[in-house]
């Protein structure tokens, strides 16, 4: 019966080394332990200098995303047992600059999200006295899936295009744009499409599809991007065939 499993963790301490190195730790292999438990065990008992992010440990906050044997996962939702007999190679999410050990710099990602205007855009706000903007359950289903994103950035680590073209707005940002585009209360689609039809937008995506596979919340960003492309193409044809139509 195997009682321990070894973790090969990528360490990067900029004051000490200019290239990351790997360090091995032996942790108890418990049935109910996820990778994050193992990291916490290391931090508490073996090496207090290990740095990584986490918060909720229940797949909600999206801060514990890392590469496990080359695949981006939420470490709080990935059991050690699946990797037995090991070892498990734990690395920071790829396609992001590394700050220290398993911590990546997400500032670029946040800027991209903000560019999508992720709020309800109205051409004209209706007066408060008219009450709230109403929505039927069917209208909610229309975008709900895209609103489940927890910004864990696994899709950015899975997307080879993000790696090759760092300017690419990326899966989560475009899915977020669709979350508002499909919301019946929103009128900002035109503004978002202006940004997304540019060089770093939807056409950068070549539909590798890996983003949807790694997504822990089944948001399906790949689908969101393809639907955007189809809609944009339809718009283009409409403006070509009906130039007098209401643009």
């Amino acid at each position, binding site marked *: 019966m195997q009682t321990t499993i070894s973790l090969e963790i990528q360490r*990067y301490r*900029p*004051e*000490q*080394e*200019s*290239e*990351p190195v790997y360090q091995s730790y032996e942790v108890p292999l418990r049935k109910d332990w996820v990778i994050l438990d193992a990291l916490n065990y290391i931090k508490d008992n073996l090496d207090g200098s290990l740095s990584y992010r986490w918060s909720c440990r229940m797949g909600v906050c999206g801060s514990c995303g890392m590469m496990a044997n*080359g695949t981006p996962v939420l470490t709080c939702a990935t059991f050690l047992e699946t990797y037995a007999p090991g070892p498990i190679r734990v690395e920071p999410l*790829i*396609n992001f*600059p*590394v*700050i*220290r050990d398993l911590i990546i*710099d997400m500032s670029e990602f946040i800027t991209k999200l903000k560019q999508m205007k992720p709020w309800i855009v109205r051409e004209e706000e209706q007066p408060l006295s008219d009450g709230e903007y109403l929505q039927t359950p*069917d209208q909610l289903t229309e975008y709900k899936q895209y609103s489940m994103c927890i910004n864990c950035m696994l899709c950015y680590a899975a997307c*080879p295009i993000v*790696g*090759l073209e760092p300017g690419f707005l990326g899966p989560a940002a475009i899915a977020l744009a669709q979350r508002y585009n499909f919301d019946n209360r929103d009128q900002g689609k035109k503004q978002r499409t202006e940004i997304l039809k540019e060089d770093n937008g939807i056409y950068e995506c*070549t*539909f*590798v*599809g*890996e983003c*949807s*596979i790694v997504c822990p919340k089944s948001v*399906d960003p*790949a*689908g969101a991007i*393809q*639907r955007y*492309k*189809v809609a944009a193409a339809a718009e283009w044809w409409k403006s070509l065939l009906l130039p007098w139509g209401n643009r």
Partner: protein
Amino acid sequence: MTINTQYTKFRPQRYQTRVPIFWWVHKWAHLRFITRELTSVFVAIYAFVLLFQLWALNQGAETYALFLAWLRTPISIGLHMVALLFVIFHSITWFNLAPKALVLRLGTKRVPDAVLIVLNYLAWGVLSVVIAWIMLKA
């Protein structure tokens, strides 16, 4: 403990990796993706063959006979076999992906993915039969 001489306390170095040229060979999903992209080359080649055929037809009977003779050469048959394989791979992968791009609704219900895929294959089959029928009748 080693010391990194490049280190500056308040602006620490970020470590950034680069994507290697052969990033797509390590994972089956990536390899499949690149293959799918490559198949479009064969789709394009085949389109050129067709255009060339039209051109030959336009040039008169003699040129067209030459073209038909070329079609029967082993090189041409080989090319057609390879192109056929790649075009089939291309079609199948795209048909299977179609529901991602196409979200159809009947009333309030979303048409299931499987139905969309099957409809694509049906359309493919029907068109192929119609074309074969026209060709064989001629």
